């Protein structure tokens, strides 16, 4: 294990050598060391990637002498979940991050133009970042063995832990994380995170080179071409990460649905918003080199700053959140990096702003492409700031003034909503804008804006309030809260229609003008992404506001019976009405639920998949046993294995008939009560032929007097999880609206409830079940409207961005 740490130290040394040689080359303006540098970078990258693969292999092969593997894996998991353990803790993620940044360095190393100052300087920054994360990995190494990791849980439970001790099994993941979405979420997160390192370096170097007054144009082309695809790919993975996390949170109880503005969720949104803003400025900057010469690189650099900030929120321990379960020495270094990564681009940008004499051509009219874009970017930045402030201010206020603020989901919904609507209107305006049709464009914009204001005032009932401001518990309710909070959710509809209209107009106007196929694909990609925004927007607003909530109790002994559901807590937040016409006070609802089947399952897991053959079954099967007897191989005692077929109880002795594939054997044992038939047992004892039983008045041809008998379970000794599983159907009136399986899984280190979700375009039927009490199975049923619009919108995002990435013909080739 020590060897892996040695490799990490070696990568740090290599990094230092690369930086030294690159600096030498830049200062002396030579290419003398280029060959060495090329191979040093390749080795640097190779080592870190190898380290990560090695760690993954330890997980794959369930090497529980590695403390990190022991902590986050179990040999019974399918291979997929064993591998997902690699990123379950801090140290593994830091190593993954370091390896990904090293891949970024490798890309710069192999890219066209690597002999230029620009790429060399960028490479220095990327290598420094890679080294920084490698150092963090070393501080708390994932390769520590259980013998080195003194205060570990394992050592506490095994005081006489010696070097020869190899644990049978690992501690395992938190059962809530054993989910396909959670297995992939950290991978996509860190792919997205790491992708911002190269654009960060490029932007910093660009700012640094151009404020000195050097060749603006050359540097601009260089950093934009190098940066834009990285930004897009990061955006793709950041989106995937949020979608996967959202789907998981949606299905996990206690997480408040697909999006709850938990500090960690919000922290993940910050890089995403910043990436969105950065991509838009960079695209504009690429079209016209005189635009956004400062904003584009600063925002691009900030994407990385936000990524580090997000890591600080999750890992430093300053923030109180469910994610923030780990803190330690590494936290401090991440805070330091956050500070540097914010200050550096800001300072360089400020200096450039003061020194710069590049004047942007001012267009005469108010309405032009530049201004619309700029307004939209500012709106995005305001939304980013609100999110940032919402998670940053409370811990600061707590430290400084000892005051705790109640910053809940309502805080974010309240403040962001107006800007969210403004954003939609600006997207519509931006997509619709054409210099030749200014008048029509303005009129359409004003028409939809007016419609939005009218829609904001129409409130069919209290549920349409954008937030439940009556639920805010303060002495006085600020006026703004009532005004914004009282806005109707209908206000999201007109801007959405506006965007769709603008998309259609733009499609008609632009598609025919493009001759080349890749331009068409790119344009279609952009439009698809913006349709995705609309779908997610509408879905998010309606799915969070109009949830109906019911509860019922099923009896596992009465399958088939239909139980009517009563509205439980039908108001989400105090003061809300029940939804879709069901009032909490009415006590009845049109909904009912039916138990189709109840099952109790014991799962012995994937022990045989670990690469280690399962232990041979103990004892002899009946066939083997008789085979042995016939071959004349007589021993004093035997251990046999068989299924109990019949049981006869007498006063002092229990007679058990074992049967298996046509063979049978009677076993006598000191009285045992409550022996079920049908289970497999192991019995050990001596044999006797022609035994006449005085109490049964029966002579046994052959009988075993067993000294010991126990139940035998194939595979592992005991199940790695047990499952209580309900197969359910939900009805509205006589119509079946959903069916599926809800279950509770109990693992040795905790349990997890797996909800039933039956999806449809209009609503999701969501049933949660958190375990039996006796024969009763209490269930909670939720009807969540338009949930799937969010996921469909996400698919639009993913398809759209992939199209723009693939169609970018100007992308630099290796």
């Amino acid at each position, binding site marked *: 294990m020590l060897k892996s740490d040695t490799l990490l130290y070696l990568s740090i040394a290599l990094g230092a050598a690369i930086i030294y040689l690159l600096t030498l080359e830049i200062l002396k303006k030579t290419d003398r060391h280029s060959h060495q540098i090329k191979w040093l970078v390749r080795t640097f990258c190779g080592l870190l990637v190898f380290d990560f693969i090695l760690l993954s292999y330890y997980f794959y092969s369930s090497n529980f002498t590695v403390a990190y593997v022991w902590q986050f894996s179990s040999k019974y998991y399918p291979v997929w979940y064993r591998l997902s353990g690699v990123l379950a803790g801090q140290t593994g993620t830091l190593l993954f991050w370091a390896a990904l940044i090293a891949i970024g360095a490798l890309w710069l190393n192999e890219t066209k133009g690597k002999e230029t100052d620009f790429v060399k300087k960028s490479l220095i920054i990327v290598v420094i970042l890679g080294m920084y994360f490698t150092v963090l990995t070393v501080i708390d190494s994932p390769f520590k063995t259980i013998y080195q990791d003194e205060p570990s849980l394992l050592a506490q439970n095994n005081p006489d832990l010696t070097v020869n001790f190899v644990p049978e099994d690992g501690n395992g993941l938190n059962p809530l994380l054993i989910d396909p979405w959670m297995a992939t979420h950290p991978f996509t997160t860190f792919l997205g995170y790491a992708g911002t390192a190269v654009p960060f370096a490029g932007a910093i170097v660009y700012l640094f080179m151009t404020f000195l007054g050097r060749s603006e144009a050359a540097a601009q082309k260089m950093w934009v071409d190098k940066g834009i695809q990285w930004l897009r790919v990061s955006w793709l993975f950041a989106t995937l990460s949020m979608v996967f996390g959202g789907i998981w949170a949606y299905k996990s*109880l*206690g*997480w*408040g649905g697909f999006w*709850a503005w938990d500090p960690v969720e919000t922290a993940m949104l910050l890089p995403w918003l910043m990436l969105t803003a950065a991509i838009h400025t960079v695209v504009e900057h690429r079209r016209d080199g005189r635009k956004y010469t400062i904003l584009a690189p600063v925002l691009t650099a900030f994407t990385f700053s936000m990524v580090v900030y997000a890591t600080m929120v999750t890992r430093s321990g300053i923030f*109180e*959140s*469910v994610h923030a379960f780990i803190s330690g020495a590494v936290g401090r270094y991440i805070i330091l990096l956050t500070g540097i990564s914010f200050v550096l681009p800001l300072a360089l940008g400020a200096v450039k702003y003061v020194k710069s004499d590049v004047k*942007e051509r*001012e267009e005469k009219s*108010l309405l032009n492409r*530049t*201004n619309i874009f*700029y*307004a939209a970017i*500012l*709106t995005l*930045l*305001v939304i980013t*700031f*609100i999110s940032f*402030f*919402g998670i940053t*201010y*409370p811990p600061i206020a707590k430290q400084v*003034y*000892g*005051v*705790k*603020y*109640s*910053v*809940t989901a309502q*805080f974010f919904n309240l*403040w962001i909503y107006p*800007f969210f609507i403004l954003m939609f209107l600006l997207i519509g305006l931006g997509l619709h804008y054409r210099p030749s049709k200014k008048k029509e464009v303005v009129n359409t914009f004003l028409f939809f804006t007016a419609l939005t204001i009218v829609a904001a005032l129409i409130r069919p009932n209290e549920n349409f309030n954008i937030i439940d401001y009556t*639920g*805010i*518990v*303060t*002495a006085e309710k*600020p006026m*703004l*809260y009532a005004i914004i909070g009282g806005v109707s959710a209908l206000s999201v509809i007109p801007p959405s229609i506006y965007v769709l209209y603008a998309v259609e107009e733009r499609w008609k106007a632009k598609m025919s003008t493009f001759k080349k196929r890749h331009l068409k694909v790119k344009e279609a990609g952009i439009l698809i992404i913006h349709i995705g925004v609309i779908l997610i927007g509408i879905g998010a607003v309606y799915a969070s506001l109009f949830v109906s909530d019911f509860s019922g109790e099923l009896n596992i002994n009465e399958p088939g019976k239909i139980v009517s559901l009563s509205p*439980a*807590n039908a108001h989400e*937040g*105090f003061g809300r009405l029940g939804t879709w016409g069901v009032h909490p006070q009415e006590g009845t609802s049109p909904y009912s639920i039916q138990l189709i089947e109840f099952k109790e399952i014991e799962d012995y897991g994937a022990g045989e998949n670990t690469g280690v053959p399962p232990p041979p079954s103990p004892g002899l099967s009946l066939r083997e046993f008789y085979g042995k007897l016939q071959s004349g191989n007589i021993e004093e005692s035997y251990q046999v294995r068989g299924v109990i077929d019949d049981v006869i109880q007498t006063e002092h002795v229990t007679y058990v008939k074992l049967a298996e594939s046509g063979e049978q054997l009677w076993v006598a044992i000191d009285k045992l009560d409550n022996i079920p038939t049908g289970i497999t047992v192991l019995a050990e004892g001596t044999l006797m032929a022609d035994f006449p039983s005085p109490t049964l008045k029966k002579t046994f041809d052959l009988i075993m007097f067993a000294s010991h008998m126990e139940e035998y379970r194939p595979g592992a000794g005991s199940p790695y999880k047990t499952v209580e599983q309900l197969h359910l159907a939900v009805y509205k009136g006589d119509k079946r609206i959903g069916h599926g399986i809800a279950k509770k899984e109990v693992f040795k280190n*905790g*349990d997890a409830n797996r909800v039933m979700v039956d999806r449809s375009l209009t609503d999701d039927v969501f049933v949660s079940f*958190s375990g039996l009490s006796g024969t009763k199975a*209490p269930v909670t049923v939720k009807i969540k409207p338009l949930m799937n619009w969010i996921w469909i919108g996400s698919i639009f995002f993913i398809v759209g961005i992939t199209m723009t990435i693939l169609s970018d013909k100007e992308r630099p080739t290796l």
Partner: protein
Amino acid sequence: MNTKKVLTIIALLAVVVFVFYAVNATPVISDNEWTYIGGMEWYQTYDQGAAVAQETGKPMLVYFWTIWCTYCEKMQTEVFPYPPTKKILEEDFVRVAIDMDVNKEDTNRFNVQAPPQELFLDESGDIITRIPGYIPEEAFLDVLTQVRDLHKSRKKTVITPGVEAKNALTNTNETEHIKEDQPNR
């Protein structure tokens, strides 16, 4: 001045307004003196509450919470502000809210493992009943009313201050029913 500068200034103004409102009007949940839950003021340590309880002869509700716990949020926005509940809490109870991240002493004193948890004590500090976890507002109101009535009746009848009554309540299955929904973290 060009349009972009004007737009920048507008955006900055929006940010300033937001920060002003956010700092001044975001609900404060606790400061150095009080904790504010459900529009009521709560003491922050058991000792403060116990002193007042002894003086006034009122029973105490000791509520354990943390800022990150979602079921606490439900307690605070749905259960405690429920008008009939709030009325009883204001009139008949001494309210103590223990922030488990801050007040470790009281958390350990009552051996509370996870938030939320609601503990009822009489004025001499004996535990009347304990609700481990979240409880919907109607059920909470039931328990609250029972505790209040019991406490009042106990005061009138001067037979060995409430031993049977206390046993009666702690032994009822009431609290068992309520256990559901304890979030596992």
